[in-house]
């Protein structure tokens, strides 16, 4: 690990102002559960860390009202997992937070950081390879061990086949959540969490499209009384693992009919992956067995697995069935 300067920002404007120079030179530090290991592994070497944990205008609390639930960017995963309003109104998000990492990590890791965390690709995280995502020439995973990599948009038209690791992100997309961003002039903009993410491109080798902005909070809209949600995650073991595949499913039921549906997959693409065809197949239907199976088939219809991850296709299909079946009961 190379030497770096540590600065503590009093507010978000100071934090952004302290992030001078090229993008890799200075990094915002919150929970640090992803940033510090990336530095230890020699993937990132910022010269300055700007600690925002005590920035007065970056909230860490969770507030519930009639209009929905607002989660401060500095709220921890443990806060999300334990919050009564989230457990009752957006249970899938609490379940996803509970399914992430370990109690120790959940006590440190923040919601903002969870959305901005980098992929777990073992080529990206091993400085030996200096892969495309880390600034190098090519993706070694596509021809190498891609057991835990993408099955959507994974072919060689895409420069990277790593997956977004967040468990929260698919749920937030499924819940139509918005993320509030603030720039160094204090100007704020809200955008759907879904639009925070974009596959990395040669111009922007990250999975999120932020300018010189800071994540302030995440806003969950109030949901209709007929809304049901479910999160399912497959790990290689029972706990402490990133998703091999995950499913965040939501249906808004009106008299047993699905008025609106969201089916968002995690661990299978560089961004939370909306299975739009499957969503469409659910609308105006019920959660009957044949509807569920058809939606599950459609959810993976566009999958193009790589050499070592074909298992993710039946796995994801199985998780979709599990999630939809759970909501029908």
């Amino acid at each position, binding site marked *: 690990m190379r030497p770096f300067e540590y600065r503590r920002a009093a507010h978000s404007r100071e934090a952004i102002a302290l992030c001078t120079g090229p993008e890799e030179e200075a990094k915002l530090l919150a929970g640090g559960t992803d940033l510090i290991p990336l530095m230890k592994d020699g993937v990132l070497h910022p010269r300055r860390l700007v600690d925002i944990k005590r920035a007065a205008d970056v909230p860490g609390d969770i507030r519930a009202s009639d209009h929905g639930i607002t989660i401060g960017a500095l709220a921890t995963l443990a806060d999300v997992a334990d919050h009564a309003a989230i457990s009752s109104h957006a249970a899938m998000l609490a379940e996803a937070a509970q399914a992430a990492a370990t109690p120790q990590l959940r006590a440190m890791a923040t919601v903002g950081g969870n959305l901005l965390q980098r992929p777990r690709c*073992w*080529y990206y995280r*091993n400085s*030996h*390879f200096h892969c495309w995502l880390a600034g190098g020439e090519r993706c*070694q995973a596509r*021809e*190498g*061990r891609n*057991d835990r990599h993408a099955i959507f948009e994974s072919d060689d038209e895409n420069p990277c086949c790593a997956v977004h690791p967040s468990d929260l992100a698919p749920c937030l997309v499924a819940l139509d959540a918005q993320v509030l961003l603030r720039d160094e002039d204090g100007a704020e903009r809200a955008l759907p969490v879904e639009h925070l993410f974009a596959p990395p491109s040669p111009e922007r080798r990250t999975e999120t499209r932020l300018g010189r902005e800071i994540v302030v909070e995440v806003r969950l809209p109030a949901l209709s009384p007929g809304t049901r949600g479910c999160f399912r995650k*497959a790990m*290689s*073991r*029972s*706990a*402490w*693992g990133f998703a*091999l595949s995950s499913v965040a499913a939501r249906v808004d039921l009106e008299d047993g009919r699905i008025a609106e549906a969201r089916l968002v997959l995690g661990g299978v693409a560089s961004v939370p992956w909306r299975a739009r065809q499957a969503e469409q197949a659910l609308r105006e239907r019920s959660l009957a067995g044949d509807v569920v199976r058809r939606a599950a088939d459609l959810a993976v219809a566009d999958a193009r697995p790589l050499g*070592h*991850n*074909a*298992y993710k296709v*039946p*796995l994801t*299909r*199985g*998780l979709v*069935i*599990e999630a939809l079946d759970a909501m029908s009961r």
Partner: protein
Amino acid sequence: MPTGEGLRGDNPADKSVRTFGVQIAEVAVDPGTGRVTVERLVAAHDCGRIINPRLVDSQIAGGVTQGLGFALLEERLVDDASGVPLTANLEEYHVPTIADVTRVRHAVVDEPDFAANAIAAKGIGEPPMIPVAPAVANAIFDAVGVRVTETPITRARLLAALARAGVS
């Protein structure tokens, strides 16, 4: 106070001293997602005379835990092109967590083996690790009718075997 000296003595020249054992695993398999849950595991090992019961129980619990790792989780993956190990840390090389370990029942044998040595006891360090993977693999076969012949029996291997067999 009486004092004395004990000696385990040499192994017999005309016999091969072995710790025999049997393990029985009960698993739940979800063919839709390839998830394997080991529900119960019983281990009976003939380690001769049991001198310290707590120590033997604990060797068995520990050995079975390691065996569950070999059976279902632990895998050293290497990048073929470069030879660089990819699972070189405990984040990628998955050992069992407490949530992966079933209740291990030690079916105590405790038969002194007078032919083995002077104290009639035999080793119990490694033996409990050995039958776990085959017992789990046999239980998976019993549950869903497919043989996975490579360990660890990951979701990837099991789902591939189920697909080959047309089970899903």
